[in-house]
Every structure is written in structure tokens, then in C-alpha cells.
């Protein structure tokens, strides 16, 4: 059946659809404000008129391309095209400032390719088995997964700034409280504004915190690239050694997190980024442009693509919002998720999965070929760059929901971020709190309901215990470090 599927994929119309989808995906991913979810939902009525396989590979291409595309502006302009590219921006942009944007782009595209291909392979070979794993995760496990992510704040903290990082995390959690209470449905801190009913819009806040803040800082400089660097030539560097470990880590974490229904690429990218940060020998380089961070984050978010399709195709439970839109595309062709998808509709389903390998190859080719040209964006004088980026940022914030309020959110967060950065607070920690707060809250409340009010539910379940073990393991090295720094060497008395 797989052979038959490969044959039907080789039809010119299908190949063209994969190519168009992937290229469109890179563009959609690269523009802040345009999302893969939006693009796939828009394509659904279009695919109605197409052959099911052609329609599906088109949407699959968009999904794969968008996940990679988000990293390009993240690296070059510190403007994450998708929320999943925030971690990439934290490492990639400093490299661009050092005149090494080309290298950052290369690392990003190769990691994206490996992560995407690995997770598609997992989807192809072990989808039904892994679906059982996904089902083991209930609300208590989601609560602990969020805690596991929040533990990352400790590793995100720069030396001596742990307290400030924790405060930033709490600030993020506090902002996440705004909106509708997930359990009672009551409105919290919305101040009667309709725009806040669904909480603070995430993407405009991100664009403000990263892109606008950076543009403000750039106003005194002539170029993004530091002036000490030879601006005339962007070096072509070979891939740094030792990245394989981090790409492997990211691919596994991304695929696993992707399989969990409802979890997204942003969390996958952050968790694998934090793990890499903890296990790297070059820990001190993190935050100042470490290719290892890009490798982990990008393989992590692209690993989500294949992973998120595991529960979507086998159980009809979408792994994230893009997969949910894709599910709509399957249903419109009468293809109902479940075992039948792999038997009765096998040719189309396997054709779709195989097309994702192709989509990954296409963006690898495009990414590698264009990396040196993209990198030249960092040489544009700031007098042209700043207005351009600000314009697109404002437009992107508006376009997400067609809401002018979101532009104010962007500006507000830009000011907030500027103040926080000057004060030495961690933006990464704030974002982790913002993303994980709602997941932790819902998981905790639902877990308590399942446990009929008893906290025991968070300790007695098997997967919970494993997650607790991981959380403790992650906290041991920072705790030891803290002990060494503060207890064994008494703080010199201030005189």
C-alpha cells in the first residue's frame, strides 16, 4: 500500500501541490500575524474541489513549511514569525548581531529538517502504538508537564539573577490569569473589555516584547550587525561540531510533546531548549548566540509536526490547532480518523505522510540555498529596517484577529519588556509563565475534580510519578550549584 501511495504522490499535480504548499508555508510562517492554522482553515474549502490527496499534501506542505519559516525572521530580526520560534530568536539573533546570521539560518534549517523528518518517520512507523501513550496523559499529567516546563525558568536564569527570573515567571503567570476562568467561566480582570475575554493575545505580546523592543534599541545603531564586525562580508561558516546530540534531543522531545493532544510546538521548543541549556558544555554561551540552542529549539518545534498528527489520524484527537484544522480537511473528504484511515483510505493517508518527507526536503533545499541571501537582511541600514519591521509588526498584530486592540497590546508589552530588560529580568521566563500558566491551571483544577478533591491524584498515577522524577532530576544540578555558591563559600561580608 505504501508503494501505491508513493506512486500516487508522484503525480505532477500532487508534487506541485507539495511544492506550492511548502513555499506558501515558509512565507506564512515567516510573517508574524499569519499562522499555519489560519492558512490551513482557508485552504479547506479550496481542497474540496481538488483530489483528496492533492488537497491534503497542500495543507501538509503549509504545516511543515510554516514551522520552519517562523525561524527566519526570528533569527534575523528577533521577530518570531510563530510563537514556537521564540527560543530560536533568543539564540539566533545574537548570532546575527555578530555577523553570523548565515550560520544561524543554516543550523536552523538543518535542525528543522532532521526534527521534521524524524517525527514523520515515527508517525509512519509507530502511530497506533504511540497513540496509546498519548491517552495515558490526563489532566494531572498536563499539570505536571506544565510544572516541568516552568522548572526551565531556573535554567533560563543567568547567573546570580535567579530571583529576578522567578519574579518574571510569576509575572507571566499573573498576566495569564486575565480572561475567562477555564473552570467556572467567570471573567477575570477583563475590566469590562471584550477584547480581553479570551485573555491577552499571545502573538501581539510576543511581537511587542521581542521585535518592537529590539527596534527601539537599534535606533542608535546604523546596522543590526555590530560595527566591530566586517559588515561587507557575511562569512560562510561550516556547521559547528557536536550539534547532533542537541538535534537528536530536540527531535525526540518535539515528537513526544507533539503527540500529546492539545500541546503545542511552542512548549516543545522551550522544553528541548531548556534541556539543551542544562546539558551543554557551553552553558555560558546561551543567551549570547549559541547554535546548540537553535538546534534544540528548531528540531523541537518541527518534531511536533509529525507527532501532532499521531493522535489526529489514529484517534481523531487533534494534537494542536493546526492539526485540528487539518482534521477538518480530512473530514470534508469523508475520511474519518481511525483504523479505516490506514486501510480503506490507506493510499491517501500514506501518500499524505510520505508527502511530508518531501515537504521537509523542499524547505531544506530552499533554506540552504537562500540562507546567505536572507542573511544579508541584517546589512540593511536601520533607517530603512526599523520602519519596515515596525510596520509589519503592527500589521501582523492587527491581522491575527483583525483587532486594533492587539496593536495596543503589542505597544504595551514593548514598553514593559524594555523596562524589564533594563532591570535585568528574564523575558524567556515571563513567556514560559504566560504559555504554561493556563495549562497548569486547567490541569490542576481538572485533576482535583478527577480526584474528587484529593491531591493524591497527582502522586499515585504512573505517568505522574515519572514526571515527578524528571522534575526532581532537572532541579538537582541547579540546587547543587546554589549550594556550592552560597553555602560552602560564605558570602563575603560587605565592608
Amino acid at each position, binding site marked *: 500500500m505504501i508503494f501505491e501511495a508513493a506512486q500516487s504522490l508522484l503525480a505532477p499535480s500532487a508534487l506541485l501541490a507539495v511544492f506550492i504548499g511548502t513555499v506558501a508555508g515558509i512565507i506564512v510562517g515567516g510573517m508574524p500575524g499569519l499562522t499555519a*492554522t*489560519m492558512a*490551513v*482553515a482557508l485552504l*479547506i*474549502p479550496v481542497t*474540496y474541489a481538488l483530489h483528496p490527496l492533492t488537497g491534503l499534501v497542500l495543507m501538509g506542505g503549509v504545516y511543515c513549511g510554516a514551522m520552519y519559516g517562523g525561524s527566519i525572521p526570528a533569527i534575523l530580526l528577533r521577530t518570531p514569525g510563530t510563537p514556537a520560534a521564540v527560543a530560536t530568536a533568543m539564540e539566533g539573533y545574537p548570532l546575527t548581531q555578530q555577523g553570523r546570521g548565515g550560520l544561524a539560518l543554516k543550523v536552523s534549517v538543518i535542525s528543522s529538517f532532521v526534527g521534521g523528518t524524524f517525527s514523520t518517520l515515527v508517525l509512519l512507523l509507530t502511530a497506533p502504538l504511540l497513540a496509546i501513550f*498519548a*491517552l*495515558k*496523559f*490526563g*489532566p494531572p499529567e498536563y499539570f505536571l508537564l506544565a510544572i516541568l516546563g516552568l522548572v526551565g525558568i531556573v535554567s533560563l536564569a543567568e547567573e546570580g539573577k535567579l530571583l529576578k527570573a522567578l519574579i518574571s515567571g510569576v509575572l507571566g503567570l499573573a498576566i495569564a490569569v486575565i*480572561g*475567562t476562568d*477555564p*473552570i*467556572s*467561566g467567570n*471573567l477575570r480582570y477583563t475590566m469590562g473589555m*471584550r477584547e480581553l*475575554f*479570551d*485573555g491577552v493575545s499571545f502573538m501581539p505580546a510576543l511581537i511587542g516584547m521581542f521585535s518592537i523592543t529590539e527596534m527601539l534599541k537599534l535606533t542608535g545603531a546604523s546596522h543590526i550587525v555590530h560595527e566591530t564586525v566586517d559588515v561587507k562580508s557575511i562569512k560562510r561558516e561550516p556547521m559547528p561540531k557536536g550539534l547532533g546530540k542537541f538535534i537528536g534531543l530536540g527531535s525526540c522531545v518535539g515528537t513526544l510533546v507533539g503527540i500529546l*493532544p*492539545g500541546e503545542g510546538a511552542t512548549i516543545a521548543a522551550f522544553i528541548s531548549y531548556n534541556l539543551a541549556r542544562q546539558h551543554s558544555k557551553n552553558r555560558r554561551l546561551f543567551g549570547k548566540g549559541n547554535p546548540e540552542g537553535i538546534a534544540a529549539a528548531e528540531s523541537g518545534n518541527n518534531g511536533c509536526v509529525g507527532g501532532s498528527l499521531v*493522535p489526529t489520524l489514529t*484517534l*481523531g*484527537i*487533534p494534537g494542536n*490547532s493546526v492539526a*485540528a*484544522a*487539518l*482534521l*477538518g480537511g480530512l*473530514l*470534508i*473528504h*469523508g475520511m*474519518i*480518523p*481511525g*483504523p*479505516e484511515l490506514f486501510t480503506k483510505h490507506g493510499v491517501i493517508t500514506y501518500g499524505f505522510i510520505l508527502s511530508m518527507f518531501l515537504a521537509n526536503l523542499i524547505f531544506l533545499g530552499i533554506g540552504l540555498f537562500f540562507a546567505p541571501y536572507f542573511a544579508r537582511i541584517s546589512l540593511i541600514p536601520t533607517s530603512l529596517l526599523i520602519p519596515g519591521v515596525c510596520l509589519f509588526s503592527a500589521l501582523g498584530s492587527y491581522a491575527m*484577529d*483583525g483587532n486594533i486592540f492587539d496593536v495596543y497590546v503589542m505597544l504595551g508589552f514593548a514598553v514593559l519588556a524594555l523596562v524589564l530588560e533594563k532591570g535585568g529580568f528574564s523575558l524567556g521566563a515571563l513567556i514560559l509563565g504566560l504559555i504554561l500558566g493556563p495549562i497548569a491551571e*486547567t490541569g490542576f483544577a*481538572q485533576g482535583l*475534580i*478527577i480526584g*474528587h478533591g484529593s491531591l493524591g491524584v497527582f502522586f499515585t498515577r504512573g505517568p505522574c510519578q515519572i514526571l515527578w522524577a524528571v522534575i526532581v532530576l532537572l532541579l538537582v544540578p541547579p540546587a547543587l550549584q546554589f549550594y556550592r555558591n552560597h553555602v560552602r563559600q560564605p558570602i563575603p561580608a560587605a565592608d
Partner: protein
Amino acid sequence: MLKRIIPVALAICLAAPLAAHAEYPEGPVTIIVPSKAGGSTDATARLFILSAKKFWPGAEFVVKNVGGSGGQKGFEEIAAAKPDGQTIGMVFTTQVVAHIVSKRARYTLDSFHVMGNLNDDPEIVVVPPESPYKTLADFAKAAKGKSMTVAVNGIGSDDFIAAKKFEENAGVDFNLMPTKGSTEQKAAVLGAHVDASFMNLSQMFAQHKAGQARIIAILTKKRSTLLPDVPTGIEQGYPVEMTATRGFVVSAKVPAKIIKKLDDLFLKVQNDPGFIAAAEKDNQFLLPMTGPEYLKYLKDLQVETKRYYDKSPW
């Protein structure tokens, strides 16, 4: 000569914009969908557009997804839109009336002109595949002995009201677990994290057919043609009925002339064989209701929902 030309020219100049103004729709018509892209309400809107373009050639329609807060954000936005007919929107039950009843909404049913209903999604009771409960009677009997954890979509949703109705009818008390939507409910049932879930047919029939979950009752008057083996609540002695309807509304302040045009378009789409075929292929269950019919349905539902709210406010 000139004296004659000037008034004529003036008349033309003044009449031209007037004539242009009468040409509704002026620019794209925005359809507010109070849920996320890719969901079933979203799919209904997009199929509506495909068909509507046939009847209004040249007109453009844009979907605006306003998800979250149980649809409230979207409903409010439809009610508050500029009343020029360029913005119409979708409503779904029971949320649209539940927000009014719980005094959270700033709109009332009077804020809308109801165009009509297109489809519905019957309420079902579903249990994990290895669950010992095969019928509603099994389930209700067991619920008397222990507190059953039951997943519903958010508070005030059709699932929530249906569960409340069942509690009253069977004389039981559930341990209700509100979720953010069908994805969480599906995962909770398939993973056996809850004892049962009240949800909609379209969300679970594939899993039922594949043996990954078991639907023990459908809460409508008649069995579904999709799952003829699943008995109704009425057949099993629990006369609880609930379904999620999806219709179209527009701000009540829109001029009557434009409302007439919109109502006419809605009826044409509702009866368009192309739309019916596409909706059926997408496993949507058609439940055509005209504007007055659907308004009466919504008003009755509001009264009923209020009764449950007054008994135990949420």
C-alpha cells in the same frame, strides 16, 4: 442651455452616490464565527460562503474567527457591529442564551435579527470502551451509588445543560468536569480519565465506530441515521433532549431593506442542493429553521436554561 445642464449635472452627481449606496453589499461581508478556525462551526460558515457566492455573484465574504470564552466574545462582537449589514455572524446553542441567563452578556436576543438555523449536532452520552455501563439505566443506577466524573464542554454549554437535565431526570448528582472543548473531552474518554462525557455526535461517532469509545445514548427525538444502533434517551426511559444548533444572525439595528436581502440569501443557501450535498459529505446534520422558527427555539431555550440557572447558579 447652461441653466438646464447644471441642474441635470447636479442631479446626476447627487444621485450617483445614492445609487451606489443602495447597492448592498458594499464591499466584503464579514461573517463572525465565534469559535476557532477548523472547528465545525467554522466549517459551516465556509460551506455557507461557497453556496452564497452562487446567489450573490461578485459579492465577497470573509470569515472572522473570534474564538474563546464560550463564544461570548464573538456574540458580543456581532451585536456591537456597525449596523450596515456588512457584518453578520453565527450563533450556537446553548451558549448564546446561557451567557444572557448568567448575566454575563451585554447583548440580549433582542440585539439580533435571527436569520435562521442551518444545522445541529445532537447531544450524546459516551463512555470509555472498557466501561461496564452499556445503557443509560446501568449508568444512572451506578451514579446513585457513587459520584461519577463526567466531562462537559464549558459551563453553560449544551453538554453542561444536558448533564444538568439528566441529573434532574434521573435523580443523580455528577462530579462535572468542565473542559476547553471536544479535544479535551475526547482524550478524557478515550483515556478513561472520566466515567463518561456529554458531548456532540459529530465529535465522537468515528471513535464509536472504531470501538475506541462507546456511545450509550443519543439525546434527540429520533435515532441518528449515522448510528442507527444507538438508542435515544427517550427509548431508554430518560426523556432528556438536547442538541447544539448553529444559525445565522445579524444586528437588529440593520435597516429592514438589507435584512430582507440577507434573509432571502439565507433561505436560498439553506435550500441549495449544492450546500446540502457538501454539508452531508462533511457529516453535518441539517436542521433547517426559518428566522421566526429559530427565534422561538432560542427564546424557549433561554427560559429552560434560566430554570437550571436559578436552581443552582454557576
